[in-house]
């Protein structure tokens, strides 16, 4: 298992390296310089040669790439306050190894082990987060916005909130929808769900987003006078002075529409996939066995069918993470969401390649990690899987 994870990480690193090369040289081939926009400004244009040398833009492309790579990988700050965060992380490591050494032959142990490891790590990271000051270099933005690492991590929280909300909605709605469709196959509800799914993933996300803005914000407010959702930003301007519940409500009011825009397409995908996978399980031999045992229909579906039908969706979700990030790029620019997507579009327009590279790499890293997590989760859910 450990060997498997290490191999996946190595392979992920190779993919990321290739990704960085492709994107870097694409930008180079484009020929546009990030300093071009200074050209029109007479007071700035004489700075161009200085800045060109400063950023190394006059060097050969390959050398620029290596410079970028070095700065991308080098640690900028690393300070630990006290011994406690190290103890927390260390005990998480010890627990993980221990949990794999101990073998208990029980069904529940596999699940418990996996979830307890995740829990322990979350706890350790949460504890250590404020106590370790860590940043990589990732070089400077050409637009003078500061270190790229800080830019990305300033925006990552917003995108993470949006993506997590979208994923949660998609899972909570999409999976039960698909299961219910499978149980009531060919019913009116099933047909409706299928039509909805087809219509949704035939619609570009920006049309969904604008449609939601128009319907659930603009027209809703115009017709009923109720301002239920906001169409821009993460919070209201008076957020800081609100009480806890009002803050929470404010967040939800801002988050709902952009998250729903992203989630709808995922709901369509998950429900279709879940329906098909559930149908396959419903016609399996072991389900017939479960019925022949005399189990009540509900137990048959909940214990025997759903557990199996949920396994393949793990893979779909891990693939869809890239889709959610792509959706976030577009949605953020529609809803004025100060996340990585907006940062990216801004950087693209200015050919600010350290930022472009960093965003692409961050997304790539996220996808690699999600895929590994999905693979591990698959193994937890399906005892037949062996990591070789």
């Amino acid at each position, binding site marked *: 298992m450990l060997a498997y994870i290490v191999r996946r990480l190595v392979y992920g690193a190779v993919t990321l390296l290739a990704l960085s090369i492709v994107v870097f040289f694409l930008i180079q081939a484009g020929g546009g310089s990030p300093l071009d926009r200074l050209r029109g400004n007479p007071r700035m244009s004489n700075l161009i040669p200085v800045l060109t040398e400063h950023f190394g833009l006059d060097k050969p492309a390959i050398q620029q790439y290596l410079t970028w790579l070095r700065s991308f990988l080098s640690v900028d700050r690393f300070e630990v306050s006290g011994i406690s965060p190290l103890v927390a992380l260390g005990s998480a490591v010890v627990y993980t190894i221990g949990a794999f050494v101990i073998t208990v*032959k*029980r*069904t529940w142990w596999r699940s418990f082990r996996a979830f307890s490891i995740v829990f322990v790590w979350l706890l350790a990271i949460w504890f250590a987060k404020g106590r370790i000051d860590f940043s990589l270099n990732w070089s400077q933005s050409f637009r003078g916005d500061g270190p790229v690492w800080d830019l990305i991590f300033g925006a990552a929280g917003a995108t993470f909130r949006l993506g997590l909300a979208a994923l949660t909605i998609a899972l909570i709605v999409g999976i039960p929808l698909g299961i219910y469709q499978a149980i009531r196959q*060919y019913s009116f509800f099933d047909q409706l769900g299928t039509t909805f799914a087809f219509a949704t993933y035939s619609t570009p996300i920006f049309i969904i987003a604008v449609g939601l803005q128009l319907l659930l914000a603009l027209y809703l407010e115009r017709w009923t006078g109720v301002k239920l959702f906001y169409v821009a930003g993460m919070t209201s301007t008076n957020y800081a002075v609100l009480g806890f519940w009002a803050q929470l409500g404010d967040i939800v009011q801002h988050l709902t529409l952009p998250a729903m825009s992203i989630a709808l397409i995922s709901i369509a995908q998950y429900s279709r996939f879940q329906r098909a996978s559930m149908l396959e399980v419903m016609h*399996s*031999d*072991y389900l*017939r*066995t*479960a*019925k*022949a*045992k*005399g*189990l*009540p*229909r509900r137990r048959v579906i909940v214990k*025997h069918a759903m*557990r*199996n039908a949920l*396994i393949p969706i793990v893979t779909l979700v891990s693939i869809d993470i890239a889709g959610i990030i792509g959706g976030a790029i577009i949605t953020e620019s529609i809803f004025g969401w100060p996340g990585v997507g907006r940062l990216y579009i801004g950087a693209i327009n200015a050919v600010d390649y350290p930022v472009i590279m960093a965003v692409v790499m961050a997304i790539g890293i996220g996808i690699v990690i999600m895929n590994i997590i999905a693979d591990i989760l698959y193994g937890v*859910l*399906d*005892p*037949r899987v062996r990591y070789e």
Partner: protein
Amino acid sequence: MSENLLEVSDLRTYFSTEEGIVRAVENVSFTMKRGERRGVVGESGSGKSVTAMSIMRLIEPPAGEIVTGKIVFNGVNLLELAEDDMQEVRGGQIAMIFQDPMTALNPVYTIGDQLMETVLLHQDVSRSQAREIVIQSLVDVQIPRAHDRLDDYPHQFSGGMRQRVMIAMGLSCNPQLLIADEPTTALDVTTQAQILDLMLKLADDRGTAVMLITHDLGVVAGFCDTLQVMYAGTIVESGKADEIYYDPQHPYTWGLLSSMTRLDEAQRQRLHSVKGAPPSLINLPKGCRFRPRCDFAIEVCGKALPILQPSGSGGQMAACHRAEELHLASIDVAASAPVDARTASQEVVG
């Protein structure tokens, strides 16, 4: 309580498909006594599995439906039972073992979990008692180190071992009837007989009646008291197994028997085979369903559907217009090219 454990009468089970209505089981009636070993023989699609599924009431609408009929088990018509009560019957009083042990067990739960589930469902015992019962049932089906293997997953067992687990599951609640749907077809030839032997011995110990569904008359020959032969959704012949062997009354049974390799008649070179393929259950031929493939068909066979009636000396039943006149047992199989057979039958008639 009557002597009969199971009385099926006039059972019809249909499936609706896009091509039309499939009459998978039509007018099937039979009875089983307590402790009886009954063989149900037929080609695939002859309705034998659907009959079994109907008894278990595992036919699911809207695709399939039990249209008419009675299935009286221990004096109770199962078709009139509420679903809750039927669940008590399933697995508790009637257990079923399926064809393919590789796929019949849920891959994500341990063997012990799945076995205990049945026990806990039908017996009023604690978890630890259930565990003991399950271990004992695994010992009974001769699974080595049963105690350890309880926490293994199905994929860690071989096919034969999994079928043993299925048998253990079926018998763990001491059912009165065990329906085994081709339990050994998917297995290695060498393990087939072992598994069957084991299953029937355990059933005998418990006084459980067994309904053994198979396409292999040879299997029935060794193991069953009574036999019913099914063709295209109907029973064409039923009775005591030996009597049917030595004096088949229906041309289809006769054809099946003739196509068996018999060691005692090894000098005969040619093996008979029943020509043609079974009819579509959507567009059934008029009259006798076996007519298109029958060597002995005459005019009346194309007009009226023969009903199951006593035939022959042994007291078995056959659904053939010419059952009494044919004396199939005396017809030489080796000379059973269609023309010869027809001549032979005419001689008999003449």
